[in-house]
C-alpha cells in the first residue's frame, strides 16, 4: 500500500513521519476521505460500547428474576444503548460513508465546505464524548447522578428537574444538542457538494443511486433533525433556567414533547435506513452483473419515502389517546410508506433476476437485508394499524420490529458496505473466509436474538423492564434471545479481526476489484489526496462501463 502522505509530511523529507506527526495530520485534516474514515472509526468504537450495553441488558434478561444489575443501572443501560446506537453509531457512520463516497462518486476534488466538514465531525465527536463522560459521574466514582436514565426519547415530564434531579439528563440534552449541530453542518455540506460539485456531464439523472439517496437524506436531516435540536433547547431552558415548556404543574404539556420528539424521531428512522438502501442499490447491481432495475422509479420512491416519512410521526403515539381522525390519518400515512419501500424491494429483486449473481461477502449481506427488511416491513405494517398497536405498543414486539429495521436491515447493509468499499479506502481486500464466518455467525445470532422477541412481546412482555416473573411462558424466549448474543459477538469479533488483519496482510485490491461502474473505482486505492488527476467527464449512469466497453456504451440506451 502506498501511503498518500500529506504535502506537510512529504516536504519534511525526514523519512517516516513520527506517530505524533501522523496523528497531527489526522487531527487538523480537512480532507473528506480522512474525515469520512474518522467518522466511521468513531462510530465503530461506539458500536462496540453500545453493543456491550446491549450484552449486559441481555444477560440481565436471560432468566426470570435475575439480579445481575440494579433496576436503575438497567434504566441507564437501555437509555445509553438507544441513544448511542442512533446518534453515535447510525448517524456518524452514515455521515462517514457519505463523506468518503459522495465526492468520489460525483468526481469532485473535495466537499463544498471542507472546514465545515471538520467542524461537523469534531462537534459530533465531542458531543458523543460529553454524553458518555456522564458514566464517570456515577455515585460510586464522584457522587454525581451517573449516566442518563430517561429512555432514548426522554419523555416529559420525567426529564424535568422535579423527576430527574442531578446532571444526568443535562449530559443527555447538551450532548445531543452538540451532535445535532454536527448533523446539520454535515447535511448542509454534503447536500451542497452534490448540488454544486458534480463532474461535467453528471446530471441529476446520472448520479449513482447512493448519491441520490444521500441527497434526499441530507434534506431530511435539515428538516427533521433541527426540530430535535430546537426541542432540546426548550427542554434545556426548562431544566437550566426554570421555564415551563414541558412542566405540567405550570400548564406545560407532556404531549407537546411527544409531538416534537417524534416529528424528529420518525423521519430519523428513514434518515438511518435510506443510506442502507443506497448501499444495496450499489452492491446488488455489481454482484448481479446487471444495471439497476428501474433507476428513475428508485429515485422517485426515495423522494416519496422522504415526503411521506414527515407525515407519520404520531404513529408512535396511538396509545396517548388522540382523536379517531388523527389515529386514522397516521394509520393510513404509515401504511402508505410500505408502497415506495415495496417498490424498492421489488426493484432489487428484479435487478437480481436473470443476473450472474456472485455470492461475495457484500452480496451475502445485501441478500440477508432483503429478507430481514421484509420481516421488518411486515411487522411495521402490522403496527401501523392503530388497534393492533394499542395491544402491542411498548412491548417486545416493537423492540423486535425496530431491531429488524436497524440491525437486520441497516447494520447488515453497513457491513456489506464495509466489505464493498474497504478495498477502496485501504487498498487491500478483506478476507472472504473471515467475511463468511462473520456473515453466518451474525445472521444466526441476529435471528436467534430478535425472532423470539416477537413472541415474548405477543405474550405480553413490556419494554424497559429490568426483569420478569417466572411461569408466564417468557423464560424460553428470553433465554434463546440471550444465547443469540453470543453468536453476534463471535461474528463481530471475526469482523474486527478481519479489518485489522487485512490492513496489514490483505491482498492488494487494485483500482477496481469488483469490476464496478461508478467513478470511485476509476482511481487508485486508496485514492490520492486530490482524488482525480483530471476532472472526469460523464455521459451515462455507469461511466466506468462506458470506459471499459467503448463500442457499447450505456448512453446509447439511456
Amino acid at each position, binding site marked *: 500500500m502506498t501511503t498518500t502522505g500529506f504535502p506537510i509530511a512529504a516536504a519534511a523529507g525526514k523519512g517516516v513521519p513520527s506517530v505524533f506527526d501522523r496523528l497531527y495530520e489526522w487531527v487538523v485534516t480537512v480532507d473528506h476521505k480522512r474525515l469520512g474514515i474518522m467518522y466511521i472509526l468513531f462510530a465503530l468504537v461506539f458500536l462496540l460500547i453500545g453493543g456491550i450495553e446491549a450484552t449486559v441488558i441481555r444477560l440481565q434478561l436471560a432468566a426470570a428474576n435475575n439480579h445481575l444489575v440494579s433496576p436503575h443501572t438497567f434504566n441507564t443501560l437501555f437509555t445509553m444503548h438507544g441513544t448511542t446506537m442512533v446518534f453515535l453509531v447510525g448517524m456518524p457512520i452514515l455521515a462517514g460513508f457519505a463523506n468518503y463516497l459522495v465526492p468520489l462518486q460525483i*468526481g469532485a476534488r473535495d466537499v*463544498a*465546505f471542507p472546514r465545515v466538514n471538520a467542524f461537523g465531525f469534531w462537534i459530533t465527536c465531542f458531543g458523543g464524548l460529553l454524553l458518555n463522560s456522564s458514566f464517570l459521574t456515577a455515585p460510586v466514582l464522584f457522587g454525581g447522578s451517573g449516566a442518563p436514565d430517561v429512555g432514548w426519547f426522554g419523555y416529559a415530564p420525567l426529564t424535568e428537574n422535579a423527576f430527574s434531579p442531578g446532571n444526568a439528563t443535562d449530559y443527555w440534552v447538551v450532548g445531543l444538542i452538540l451532535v445535532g449541530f454536527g448533523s*446539520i453542518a454535515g*447535511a*448542509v*455540506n454534503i*447536500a*451542497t457538494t452534490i*448540488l*454544486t*460539485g*458534480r463532474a*461535467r*456531464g453528471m446530471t441529476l439523472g446520472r448520479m449513482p443511486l447512493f448519491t441520490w439517496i444521500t441527497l434526499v437524506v*441530507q*434534506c431530511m436531516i*435539515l*428538516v*427533521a*433533525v*433541527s*426540530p430535535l*435540536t*430546537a*426541542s432540546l*433547547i*426548550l427542554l434545556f*431552558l*426548562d431544566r437550566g*433556567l*426554570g*421555564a*415551563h*415548556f414541558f412542566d405540567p404543574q*405550570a*400548564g*406545560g*404539556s407532556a404531549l*407537546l414533547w411527544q409531538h*416534537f420528539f417524534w*416529528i424528529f424521531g420518525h423521519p430519523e428512522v428513514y434518515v438511518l435506513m435510506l443510506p442502507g438502501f443506497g448501499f444495496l442499490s450499489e452492491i446488488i447491481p455489481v454482484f448481479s452483473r446487471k444495471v439497476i432495475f428501474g433507476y428513475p422509479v428508485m429515485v422517485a420512491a426515495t423522494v416519496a419515502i422522504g415526503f411521506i416519512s414527515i407525515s407519520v410521526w404520531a404513529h408512535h403515539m396511538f396509545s396517548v389517546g388522540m382523536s379517531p381522525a388523527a389515529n386514522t390519518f397516521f394509520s393510513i400515512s404509515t401504511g402508505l410508506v410500505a408502497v415506495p419501500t415495496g417498490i424498492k424491494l421489488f426493484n432489487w429483486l428484479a435487478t437480481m433476476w436473470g443476473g450472474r449473481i456472485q455470492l461475495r461477502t457484500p452480496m451475502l449481506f445485501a441478500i440477508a437485508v432483503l429478507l430481514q427488511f421484509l420481516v421488518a416491513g411486515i411487522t411495521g405494517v402490522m403496527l401501523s394499524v392503530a388497534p393492533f398497536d394499542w395491544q402491542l405498543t411498548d412491548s417486545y414486539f416493537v423492540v423486535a420490529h425496530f431491531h429488524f429495521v436497524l440491525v437486520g436491515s441497516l447494520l447488515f447493509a453497513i457491513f456489506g458496505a464495509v466489505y464493498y468499499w474497504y478495498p477502496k479506502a485501504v487498498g487491500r481486500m478483506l478476507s472472504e473466509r473471515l467475511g463468511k464466518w462473520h456473515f453466518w455467525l451474525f445472521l444466526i445470532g441476529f435471528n436467534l436474538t430478535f425472532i423470539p422477541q416477537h413472541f415474548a412481546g405477543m405474550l405480553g412482555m413490556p419494554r424497559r423492564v429490568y426483569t420478569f416473573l417466572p411461569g408466564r411462558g417468557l423464560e424460553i424466549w428470553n433465554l434463546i434471545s440471550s444465547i443469540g448474543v453470543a453468536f453476534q459477538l463471535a461474528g463481530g469479533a471475526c469482523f474486527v479481526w478481519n479489518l485489522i488483519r487485512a490492513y496489514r496482510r490483505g491482498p492488494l485490491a487494485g483500482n477496481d476489484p469488483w469490476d464496478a461502474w461508478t*467513478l470511485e473505482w*476509476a*482511481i487508485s486505492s486508496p485514492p490520492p489526496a486530490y482524488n*482525480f*488527476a*483530471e*476532472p*472526469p*467527464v*460523464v*455521459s451515462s449512469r455507469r*461511466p466506468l462501463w*462506458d*470506459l471499459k466497453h*467503448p463500442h457499447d*456504451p450505456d*448512453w446509447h440506451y439511456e
Partner: protein
Amino acid sequence: MTTIPLPQPDTPWTLPRRGPVGILLFILAESSIFAVFVAAYLYYIGKSLTGPTPREVLEFPVLMTVCLLSSSVTVHVAIRALRRGATARFLGFWIATIILGVAFLAGTAREWYQLITVHHLTIRTNLFGSTYYALVGLHASHVIAGLVMLLIVAAFGLAGRVRPDHVERADVISIYWHFVDVVWIVVVTVVYIIGR
C-alpha cells in the same frame, strides 16, 4: 483513465454556486428550528396559569420593526453597489445596516428590561414568559450572529480590503440577514398580533 468519451463534447456545464446553495440549505434547517419555537408559542397562547398576560405588558414594537425591515433594504443596496464596484457606497450602506441592527437589538434590550423590572415577567414566571423569552431570544441571538458577520466584513471594508470580486461572499451574509428579517415578520405576527 478518468476521461470518459462524451457524445457531445461541448455540452455547456454550469452548476449553482456553493455559497448561496449552502446558506439556503442552512436556512432550511434554521426554519425548522424556528418552526418548533413558533409552534410552542402558538400552542401555549392563553394557557398561562398566572399573570402577567401579553395584553397587559406587550406593545407593538413599531420602531424596532421599521429598523430591522429597512436594514434589509440597506444590505441589498450595499450588495448592488459592491457588484457595480462602488466600494465606498457599499461600505456606507453596509455600516448603515449594522447601525439599524444594533438599534433593533437596543429595542429588544429595552423591552426586556422593562418587562423584567416593571412587570416582573421572567422566563420562570409563567408559560407566556417561557415562550416569549425563548422565541424572541432565539431571534435576537440570530440578529447577534448576523451582526458579528456584518461587523467582520465592515472591519475588512474599513481596512480597504473588500473588493468587487468578494460580492458573492458578502451576498451569502446578506441572504442570511434577509432570513433574519423575514423571521422577525413571523415573530411579530405571532407574538404581538396573534398572541395578544
